[in-house]
């Protein structure tokens, strides 16, 4: 079973004019693969990612993740799936500023409610340690550096042990030092934990070090 399997995806934007952003996209991603999606601005890569994330449901075609067909599910069902199986890292960290670092990481797990609060807290602390954020657990999210915030966002994406981590330019806002830290974390997750990772990126060096590159241009896949 593939981690991700998409078939004949077509998507149009209608505002301001009709424009086809994705043209007949099909590909598979195996479990444990670390995939980079590259392409010029406007090639449709972020759009594709948001379709995969289950947040965008306006498309033609089929999307299957871990054997579950997502096309046609209701918003609530998709939200549940997202909570459980997908960890998303955006270009901007989007932490909740009024909550502590620890709370931010724990939130998706508390929502899922499959483990006790203590278990979740322990896992969250372990995650933060893994990402080099020991000692920052109880600081307010708005009070740490940009690089640290992005790493907290990654810890948050990991908390429910999702089958897939999706990143939309996860290192776009980071300096080279932090970019390397993040990249190493991803690599380790893929290798050691068998985590499937698919990341949209403009960073060619980042992409080159992944297992596989999917290159897009004008809404089509030109290399995979």
């Amino acid at each position, binding site marked *: 079973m593939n981690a991700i399997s998409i078939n004949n995806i077509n998507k149009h934007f209608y505002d301001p004019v009709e424009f086809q952003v994705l043209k007949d996209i099909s590909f598979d991603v195996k479990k444990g693969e670390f995939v980079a999606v590259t392409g010029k601005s406007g090639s449709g890569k*972020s759009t594709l990612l*948001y379709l995969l*994330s289950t*947040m*965008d449901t306006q498309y033609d075609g089929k999307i299957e993740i871990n054997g579950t067909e997502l096309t046609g599910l209701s*918003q*609530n069902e998709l*939200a*549940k*799936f*997202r*909570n*459980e199986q997908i960890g*998303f890292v*955006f270009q901007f960290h*989007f*932490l*909740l500023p*009024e*909550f502590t670092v620890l*709370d931010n990481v724990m*939130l*998706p797990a*508390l*929502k*899922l*409610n499959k483990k006790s609060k203590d278990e979740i807290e322990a896992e969250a602390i372990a995650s933060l340690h893994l990402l080099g954020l020991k000692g920052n657990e109880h600081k307010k999210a708005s009070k740490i550096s940009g690089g640290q915030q992005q790493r907290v966002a990654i810890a*948050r994406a990991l908390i429910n042990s999702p089958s897939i981590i999706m990143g939309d330019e996860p290192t776009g806002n980071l300096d080279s030092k932090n970019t390397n830290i993040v990249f190493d974390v991803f690599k380790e997750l893929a290798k050691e934990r068998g985590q499937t990772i698919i990341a949209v990126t403009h960073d060619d060096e980042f992409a080159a070090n992944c297992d596989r590159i999917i290159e897009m241009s004008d809404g089509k896949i030109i290399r995979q």
Partner: protein
Amino acid sequence: MNTNQKIAKVHLTSRFRQLLVAILSVSFGISMYIAMNSFMAGVNNIQTEITFTTMSHIKIYNDLSEEITPIIPKPNDSNTILMVNNARNIQYTQGIKNADAIKNELLNLPEINGVALQLNEKVFIRNGVSNTSASLSGIETVNENKLFETSKYIINGNLSELDKRSDGIILGVGLAQTIGVKVGNTISVLTSEGVSKTFKIIGLLESGSKVRDKTSALITIQTARQLFSKNKSYATDVLANTYDYNNASEVAEKVRQLTGYKVESWQEGNSQLESSSLLRDILAIAVSLTILIVAGFGIYNIMNMTVNEKIKEIAILKAMGFNGKDVIEIFLTQSVAIGLIGGFVGLFLGNVIVQMLDIVTFKIASQNTLPVAYRLKDYLLAFSFGLIITLIAGYLPSRKASKVDPVEILRG
């Protein structure tokens, strides 16, 4: 507390000033509702008290104008013409002859709180040269006092003194002033039959009603009966009070079965009293409800602003897997918290305001301070209205929040 409520709590506590403003607007609305309605209820009560200082709930009297029987009945055959000029109906009965019997029957009814007999006639009061008209009231001091608390309004003397002296009389202050007499002076009372008797003034009546104080004179009913040569059980009016003045008309209907004399409830005699009381109540509720609604708009505004400011957070929460219902719960919880806290503070504040009003000096009827009433229903209604309005005001922005499209927000 589940996750959504925890998030709501963080939202609330992290912007303390905004929370305070929201709570205060609810509290203000609720406390004003309580203050206005308590005050209005107090005013209505005073109005009632003033009314019932002189009016009884039920009055029985001999209504002479009713049932005028024709002197000569209309002839049956068509060959006869009937013409009667200047017909005079001579009533053989005036007033109520066996009033004591009626009184006792009334006292047997469970709804009746008290009965008093009165003998009321117009007389002339003479003091040396001046001649002033007055309404003489022969009363049963104990019963009259039970119904109207008359002794409260007697100054410079005592109501019970009337029973001790058969020539004692109490004049209204205005009347005494018109005649030019004070307590201790004597006056002469002249009836319409031409009977004259000297009385000593043993007290003055200050009821607060100018009309009453300018025309009333009080003596015992026994003295009055003697003055007008009536027998022991004679009265012109039988007055009765019920325990609850609201059911006076029903009780009056019952009483009508007991006697042929005219039985009138206070509502029949004075319908404008009920209407004005009702109007005052409507006014109080309308104004205070309006204030609460305005407070509701305030809450709506604040919640709307909160949702707008947190729109990115909502998108993130949705990206994490929180669904629309969760988002509604998060923001509705905040509104409910504001409504509850604001509500309790408002109840407390409202009570404090009413207590403050209670001690403001103001002379009306028997009160020396502003009239207020402490009614549980005002507090319950205020809290309920406040909560409902806050819920509605909070629900609409919450619903808007739940419909946020995360993709739109996060992709910018």
